[in-house]
C-alpha cells in the first residue's frame, strides 16, 4: 500500500514535470508552413533562443518576431520558390544547453544556418559546433567579444559595446562631464561593457574615478553608490542588462547623489521604467532608433521598414516590439535576403559569402553593411541618445 502510494505520487510528479517541459517546448517545435502542403522541401534554419532562465524576457519577443516573419515570408511565396522553416529551440540561458541544442539542429535537422543565441555566453559556446559544421551563425546578442574575437562564420545584429561605449562617452564629453564612475553587472554584458569603457576612456577627455560591480540578483547597491558618491564623480555610467538596473536607479535617488545616471542599450526595456518609477526620470542611454520611430529620418527606407514592423507586431501581440525583437528580425532577414540572392541550390560556404557581401540592408537595428573584417556592420548613425521623461522614452539632444 505504502509503496503503491509512493509510486503514484512519483508518477504524478513526473507527469507534472513533463507537462511543464513540454509546455516550454511546444510551439517551438511546430514549424510554420505545415498547413499549406508545400510541395517543395523547405529551407531549414535553426534559432537558439533563451525561452527560460535569466534571459527569458529577451527570448520571448525574439521568438514572437521570428514566428511572425516566417509566416509572412512563406505567405509571400517563400525563398526561391521554396518555403522556409525556422526551428526554434530553448537554450535555457545556459551555455552547455546551447551547445547541446545546436548539435541537434546541425545533426538531426540539418539546418543551413543558425540564428542566435540570445545571450553572449551561449553565442560563444556555440562556436565550436558552428566551426565543425561550417555553417553561418548570426548572433543576436550584444557582447563585443562576438565579433571582436573574429570568426569568418559568425555575424552579429545587436549593437556591440565597442560601438555603443564610444558613442556614450562622446555624449558625456559634449555635456562637459570630466569625471565618471562605472557601476556594472559582474556578468557577461556588464563586465564586457566595463572592459570596453576602461579600454577606450584613455582616448577621451574623461577620467575614471571609481569602478564598482554588483552581482545578478543583488537587492541593494547603496554600498557601491556610497563609494561612488565620495569619489567626486560627475556622472555614473551603468552597464547591465538585468532588473538590477532599477535597483541602482532607486538607490541613487534615495542617497540623493545628485549626479546623472547614464545607462546602455541593455536598459532599453519598459520593465526598467516600471520598476524604477520616479527614479527613472532623466535616465539617459544610447540605443537604436526603434524605441521612438520619429528618430528615423522622415520618409527614409528605415522609417518605412520599422513602422511596418512595429504596426504588425503590435497588432499581433498587443505590445510594441522592443530592441530584442528588432535584433531577431535583422538576424532572420540577413540570412533570408542572402538566400534570395543565391540560386535555389547553394552550399553553406556560398551562403556565408553572400551574408558577408550584405551591403546597405535596411533592418530594425540600423543599416547593415558587412565586410570581411566587420561582421557587426552598424555605425554611429544607427544610434541615438534617449532620455526617460514623464515615464516614456524621448529623444535626447
Amino acid at each position, binding site marked *: 500500500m*505504502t509503496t503503491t*502510494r*509512493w509510486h503514484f*505520487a*512519483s508518477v504524478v*510528479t513526473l507527469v*507534472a*514535470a513533463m507537462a*511543464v517541459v513540454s*509546455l*516550454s517546448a511546444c510551439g517551438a517545435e511546430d514549424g510554420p508552413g505545415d498547413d499549406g502542403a508545400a510541395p517543395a522541401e523547405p529551407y531549414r534554419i535553426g534559432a537558439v533562443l533563451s*525561452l*527560460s*532562465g*535569466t534571459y*527569458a*524576457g529577451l*527570448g*520571448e519577443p525574439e521568438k514572437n518576431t521570428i514566428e511572425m516573419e516566417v509566416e509572412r515570408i512563406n505567405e509571400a511565396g517563400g525563398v526561391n520558390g521554396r518555403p522556409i522553416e525556422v526551428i526554434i529551440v530553448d537554450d535555457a540561458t545556459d551555455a552547455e544547453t546551447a551547445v547541446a541544442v545546436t548539435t541537434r539542429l546541425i545533426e538531426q535537422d540539418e539546418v543551413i544556418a543558425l540564428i542566435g543565441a540570445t545571450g553572449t555566453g551561449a553565442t560563444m559556446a556555440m562556436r565550436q559546433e558552428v566551426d565543425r559544421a561550417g555553417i553561418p551563425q548570426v548572433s543576436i546578442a550584444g557582447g563585443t567579444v562576438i565579433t571582436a574575437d573574429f570568426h569568418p562564420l559568425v555575424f552579429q545584429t545587436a549593437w556591440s559595446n565597442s560601438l555603443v561605449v564610444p558613442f556614450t562617452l562622446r555624449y558625456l564629453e559634449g555635456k562637459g562631464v570630466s569625471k565618471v564612475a562605472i557601476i556594472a553587472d*559582474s556578468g557577461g554584458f556588464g563586465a564586457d561593457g566595463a572592459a570596453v569603457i576602461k579600454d577606450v576612456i584613455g582616448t577621451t577627455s574623461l577620467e575614471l574615478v571609481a569602478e*564598482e*560591480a*554588483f*552581482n*545578478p*540578483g543583488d*537587492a*541593494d547597491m*547603496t*554600498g*557601491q553608490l*556610497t*563609494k561612488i*558618491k*565620495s569619489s567626486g564623480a560627475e556622472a555614473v555610467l551603468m552597464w547591465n542588462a538585468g*532588473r*538590477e538596473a*532599477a*535597483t541602482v536607479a*532607486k538607490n541613487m*535617488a*534615495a*542617497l*540623493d547623489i545628485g549626479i546623472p545616471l547614464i545607462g546602455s542599450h541593455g536598459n532599453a526595456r519598459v*520593465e526598467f521604467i*516600471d*520598476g524604477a*518609477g*520616479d*527614479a527613472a526620470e532623466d535616465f539617459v542611454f544610447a540605443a537604436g532608433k526603434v524605441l521612438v520611430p520619429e528618430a528615423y529620418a522622415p520618409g527614409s527606407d528605415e522609417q518605412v521598414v520599422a513602422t511596418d514592423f512595429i504596426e504588425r507586431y503590435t497588432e499581433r501581440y498587443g505590445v510594441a516590439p522592443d530592441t530584442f525583437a528588432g535584433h531577431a528580425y535583422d538576424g532572420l532577414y540577413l540570412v533570408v535576403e542572402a538566400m534570395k540572392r543565391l540560386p535555389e541550390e547553394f552550399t553553406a560556404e556560398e551562403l556565408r559569402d553572400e551574408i558577408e557581401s550584405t551591403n546597405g540592408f535596411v533592418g530594425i537595428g540600423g543599416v547593415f553593411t558587412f565586410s570581411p573584417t566587420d561582421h557587426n556592420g552598424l555605425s554611429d548613425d544607427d544610434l541615438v541618445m534617449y532620455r526617460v521623461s514623464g515615464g516614456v522614452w524621448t529623444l535626447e539632444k
Partner: protein
Amino acid sequence: MGGTELLQFVLAGLKNGSIYALVALGFTLIYAATGVINFAQGEFYMLGGMLSVWAYADLGLPLPLAGLVGVAATAAVGGVFELGAIRQRKDGDPLALIVITVGGSMVLSSMARHLFGPNERPLPLFSGGGSVSVFGAVLEVQTIWILGLTALAVVGLWYLYNRTGLGRAMRACAVNRDAARIVGIDTRLMVTVSFLLAAALGALAGLAVTPLTQTAFDVGPTVGIKGFAAAILGGLGNPIAAVVGGLVLGMLESVSIAFISSTYKDAIALIVLLAVLFMRPQGILGRSSREKV
C-alpha cells in the same frame, strides 16, 4: 572614510542582512523539524513577491491586502508541497527528501514562469519613496519596513516557541521525534506546520524586498544560497543563530564593498564563512551534536 559613509555601509549591511535572516529562518525551521535542508526555500521568497504582485496588479487588491494574500498563499503552497511531496516519502530518508526539495524548487519556478511570464514585475513602496536621515546617513523608509518586519518575525517566532503549546510541541519534535510521538504529539503535523511557517517567512522577505528590486520567476536560487549560507554561518536549527548569521553575512558583504572590492564581495563573504566553519563547524551559535544529545 568619514563616519557618515561608514554608517551608510552599516545600514546597507543591516538591510541585506535582515533579508538573509528571514530566508535563513525558513531553512532553520524546516531543518529543526525534519533534519533536511529545503532547497525550495528561495522559491518561497520568489512566490511571496510574485503572488503579492499578482494580487495587487492583476486582482486589483489594495497593497496591504495583496501582501497578506501573497504571504498566505505562499504558506499554503508550502503546506501543500509538504503534504504532496515530502510526506509521501514515508521513511523520511534525508537524502531523498533533499532531492525532492530540489525538484520542488524547479517545478515552482517553472510554474511561475508560465503563469506570470518571464519579465520582472514591480510592486509599489509600502509607504512612499521617502527616506530619513540617521546622523547624515540615508535610511530608506522601505528599509525600515524590512528591518521592522524581520524584528516582528523574530519576536513572533520567539513567542510561538516559548509561550504556546504548538511551539513547545515543535521544539519537542526538533529535540527528539520519537519521544515527542510517544508523549502524544502529532509529529507529522508539526512537519507540515514548519513548512507553512518557513514558506510564510520566505514570502515575507520576498514581499518586503520586491518594492525595491522588482521580482521575477528566477529570483529564488540566488537568495536561497545566501539564506542557506546565513543559516549555516549562524548554526543550523536555532532561530536566533539564523538571524545572527544573516546579519553577519550582510555586514561582511558591506565591509568588503567599503574596504576591499565590490567585485569580490560574495567571494570574500564565502571565504569568511568557510574560515568560521573550519573553526566552529556547528556555526557561530550552534551547539555541537554531542552537546545536543
